[in-house]
């Protein structure tokens, strides 16, 4: 909103933004006060400050499913990208088909098909697995597989763009030193591509943290399903306003922490580039800095 006034000085811009925020908050609170609904703000406070076991386990599921699925996505993305630029045509076709299929169909369809579709036909019934003493139920496994496969398709394109951004002279120099294609990729091209890949990758993981909520369709009790169930039964039944404000706060916490971590990773990868580490904006500035750049 402040971008409409590029002439404003920076401190002025900041206080204007703050003022707008306060006005909006006041309006919302006023609107709350005028309705006849009995607000129970304790539900929000309790869910955030004193989360019960259900919320904590939902949080744990959201986080672990996101991390594992993203890891699968990155690994598939690296292989997919190498496949997309392979010299062998059938390999290229296979990689292109994979990307075409998983980007061309809704994730919800993929999740449902992989769990129910494969389950009901007996192709794979998704039995529970015990890994390192932890029981992973079938729907969680199916969710991870679906999210990972879907993410891999997007990561393929991101990694491919990263590889193509690297000067072909790098591959030639590596080859002229006697490296094989594989070794040159691993030691020379991919580490440089990583720098290009990390910002969009961070974006993908931010999305992933929230997209896990689609697993509601196969009843994975992650964060969204947890709050959804609290709304359906128990002491907080039919308090969607408070419950989903609390859910939003939890998701915001996850994405905010990830934002901080991502900034650190990007600073680390910047070594050797013109943007020396200390010239990069700090974590806090990166997260909240956008509005301050306005007016320059």
């Amino acid at each position, binding site marked *: 909103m402040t971008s409409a006034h590029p002439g404003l000085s920076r401190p002025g811009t900041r206080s204007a933004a703050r003022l707008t925020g306060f006005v909006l908050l006041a309006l919302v609170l006023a609107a709350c006060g005028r309705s006849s609904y009995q607000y129970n703000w304790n539900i929000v406070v309790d869910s955030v400050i004193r989360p019960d076991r259900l919320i904590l386990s939902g949080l744990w599921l959201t986080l672990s499913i996101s991390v594992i699925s993203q890891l699968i996505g990155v690994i598939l993305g690296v292989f997919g990208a190498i496949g997309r630029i392979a010299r062998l045509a059938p390999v290229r076709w296979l990689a292109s088909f994979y990307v075409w299929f998983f980007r061309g169909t809704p994730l919800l369809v993929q999740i449902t098909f992989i769990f129910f579709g494969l389950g009901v036909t007996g192709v794979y019934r998704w039995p529970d697995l015990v890994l390192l003493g932890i029981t992973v139920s079938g729907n969680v496994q199916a969710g991870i597989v679906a999210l990972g496969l879907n993410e891999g398709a997007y990561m393929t394109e991101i990694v491919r763009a990263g590889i193509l951004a690297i000067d072909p002279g790098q591959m030639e120099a590596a080859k002229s030193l006697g490296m094989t294609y594989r070794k040159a990729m691993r030691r020379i091209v991919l580490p440089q591509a990583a720098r290009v890949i990390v910002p969009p990758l961070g974006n993908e993981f931010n999305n992933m943290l929230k997209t896990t909520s689609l697993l509601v369709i196969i009843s994975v009790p992650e964060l969204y399903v947890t709050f959804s169930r609290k709304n359906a039964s128990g002491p907080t039944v039919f308090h969607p306003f408070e419950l989903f404000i609390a859910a939003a706060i939890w998701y915001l916490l996850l994405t905010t922490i990830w934002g901080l971590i991502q900034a650190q990773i990007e600073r680390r990868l910047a070594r050797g580039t*013109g943007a020396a580490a200390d010239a990069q904006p700090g974590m806090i500035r990166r997260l909240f800095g956008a509005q301050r750049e306005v007016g320059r």
Partner: protein
Amino acid sequence: MTLHTPHDLLEAVGNLPESGDDVIVDATDVHKWFGRLHVLKGVNLTVRRREVVVLIGPSGSGKTTFLRCINHLERIQQGEICVNGHLIGYRTENGKLVEDREREIARQRSEIGMVFQRFNLFPHMTALENIIEAPIQVRGISMDEAREMGLKLLERVGLAAKVNTYPQQLSGGQQQRVAIARALAMRPSLILFDEPTSALDPEMIGEVLDVMKELAHEGMTMIVVSHEMGFAREVADRAVMMDEGIIIEEGTPEALFSHPREERTQAFLSKIL
């Protein structure tokens, strides 16, 4: 930059040239097409050990392409190139040429150094890491041994103070000297230079040519695509003039530059001298 005693650069990596003047590169009737464009139309060239050959010619004459064929960065469609007596990039099966396995091509390339016009240093590695990467990854030598060799090399090319500097913080001339050190670290029997000074600011050309001259004096076999006439006159044994995909004339630099026989050579030289 100070010139060192003979064999300093090569001694730093324990790569003193063998004596004798056996053939290092033997190219016969090399043809290459880019699609329908016939860029090499039967190139023949023999380079002996310790020889320094300078390739000149107008742009588009195929000199860089030919150089890149010698370490198989470009495939050829006809003819053959042998380095150290072995076919490069191909092997004969039932009288036919078949492209070699990647591993074998890589092994052959590790014996042939290459220095690029645009340096192509690895930007995510320091000067020292650039130099020791291939010796460790390809030759499998130990980290300690590689470091010791890398430090010696950097010292000999006058960059002892830049060991932990990333390429972006080095000048063009410094980058190219690191690139030469990187090629030397593989103990090649031959180094190919693809216009090594043409991306440099004029004041940095000298420092790179000095290193190359030193290498030539130490007995390194070199094929250099370059229009540096001073360099050619001073250290090259032969100058080779290419035009339209073939070698049209060759001789000592003195003879070729002062008394070119071919009209095209005269025309070309009159433009660059």
